[in-house]
């Protein structure tokens, strides 16, 4: 599924496929690497990168278990001499649960909106070939390149006029809108692979377009849909700019913004700050452990080829 999820700009919405499915060579699942000899240079490089990845994570974990006065005298690379969970306690009692539940609400809402709008849209873009659907698709291609920063000022105006300022909706709606272009492209890519004959067969059986969408297109596009779910959820999880600018009070604060505020709240209490960073990573790390295959596969889909 990693191959054709992102549609090629050159071949957009053309009725005939530019590539025969038969020329696609799927690597055998247990394929050996092409050189059997070990590659010492590459091995060394990967170990170096491993260190670059692990050392900061290790330093973070170790420091978050150290009391503040010890942290200032010791090096974070040394293992903590008398580990303490005080920092975690402090963070958990500073409204962390509230931040987490807000973020979860935003993520679920964003995924729901993105799926609800982009699945039918991609379906229409693939199935109907009139000027409007082509135009709409081009609009989304363009949308991939719009940086969120560029529209944040007018969005601020819009949000204020809609009376949404400082609410969770003020975060949810723009985040969902900005997750849509990539989602539509990914879905169009997968839906395009559903063969025409299947639709024709269903049409002959008298199925309505809605029925075809729910009983054929959606089941066939499962891979693309899970990619979109992961992508949209990550966008919501990661979002910083929209919450920073469209919210103000404690009530609608999400996790990323909460972390940012901990900097001033905890001041120089860096161990507590790091404990909050660790805690913020726990939920998604749990998801990663459970659904590694889907997550990694889904993200390969976002990248496409």
């Amino acid at each position, binding site marked *: 599924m990693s*191959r054709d999820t992102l549609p090629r700009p*050159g071949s957009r919405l053309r009725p005939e496929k530019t590539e025969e499915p038969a020329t696609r*060579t799927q*690597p055998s699942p247990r*394929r050996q*690497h*092409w*050189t059997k000899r070990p*590659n010492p240079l*590459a091995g060394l*490089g*990967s170990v170096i*990168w491993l260190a670059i*990845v*692990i050392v900061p994570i290790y*330093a*973070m974990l170790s420091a978050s278990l150290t009391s503040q006065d010890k942290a200032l005298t010791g090096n*974070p690379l040394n293992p903590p001499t008398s580990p303490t969970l005080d920092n975690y306690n402090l963070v958990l009692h500073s409204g962390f649960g509230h931040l987490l539940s807000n973020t979860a609400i935003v993520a679920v809402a964003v995924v729901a909106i993105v799926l609800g*709008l982009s699945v*039918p849209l991609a379906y229409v873009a693939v199935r109907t070939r009139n000027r409007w659907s082509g135009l*709409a698709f081009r*609009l*989304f291609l363009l*949308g991939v*390149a*719009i*940086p969120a*920063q*560029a*529209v944040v*000022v*007018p*969005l601020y*105006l*819009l949000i204020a006029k809609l009376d949404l300022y400082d609410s969770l909706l003020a975060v949810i*709606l723009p985040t*969902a*809108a*900005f997750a*849509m272009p990539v989602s*539509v492209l990914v879905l169009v890519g997968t839906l395009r692979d559903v063969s025409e004959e299947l639709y024709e067969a269903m049409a002959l059986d008298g199925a309505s377009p809605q029925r075809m969408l729910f009983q054929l297109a959606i089941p066939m596009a499962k891979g693309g849909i899970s990619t979109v779910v992961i992508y949209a959820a990550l966008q919501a999880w*990661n979002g*910083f700019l929209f919450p920073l600018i469209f919210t103000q009070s404690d009530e609608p604060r999400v996790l*990323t913004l909460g*972390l940012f505020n*901990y*900097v001033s709240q905890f001041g120089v209490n*860096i161990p507590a700050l*790091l404990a*909050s*960073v660790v805690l*913020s*990573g726990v939920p*998604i*790390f749990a998801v990663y452990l459970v659904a*590694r295959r889907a997550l*990694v596969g889904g*993200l390969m889909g976002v*990248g496409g*080829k």
Partner: protein
Amino acid sequence: MPGVLFFAFFAVVPMGLAFYLSFTSWDGLGDPTPVGLDNWRKLIDDDRMVQSLWLTVLLTAASWVFQTVIALLLGVWAAGRQRNRAVLSAIFFVPFLLSSTAIALLFYALLDPNFGIIRENILGSSSGAFLAIVFVGGWQFIPFHTLIYQGGARQIPEVLYQAAAIDGAGRYRQFFSITLPQLRHTVTTSTVLMVVGSLTYFETVLILTKGGPGTDTAILPYLMYEAGFKSYDFGYASAIASFLVLVATGLSLILVRLTGFGGMRSTREGM
């Protein structure tokens, strides 16, 4: 199609509105008043703007080199399927699971001169702060791009390598004559994502350096944020934002031209 309307309302309309606002003066409270070209004139005369544009381009370029080289090598290496590689790739991926904010905070702490690993004020020197942003961005996004390259490398047909091996090409020859050319579309995809993504280094800059020391890491999005949401000069902020769109579009157009992304036909050359 409600989807189109929704997207248009929250993304396309605001872009037009941003352009309109760039011709007005607005403090965020009252109504915008038209001031003609004032903001744009100010933009052209602003020395910080020139510096900021240069920084943005430099940051994008430096991040591209850093991330592409490492992600490409790691991705190709990880495309093999031995067991230890699978385990290592899983570990490599971990940084991507933290949000940009969390990562920026992590390095904010680790680079703190009183606390961190290196007890030197890296973020206090302008080249140090710049390199720190490049490094932190790479630390976060290299896992993702490695994944893309890994996917790309697995799609390269085995026969090409077999044929090359029969012709007596060594490993490095194979890498430069087969792997790299075969991956060029993957490079393009990844590059486009990196260029668009490097504009989101805003969080990293805001948390790590606040644009400093002085204005030495104030990239365009940060300058826009300061003008708008710190100085409440939303007209000027909109001018910067419109300029940002121009730069981003320009960059992607150049990329498309240079790489022939539009053509995209001969993925299977040499088959």
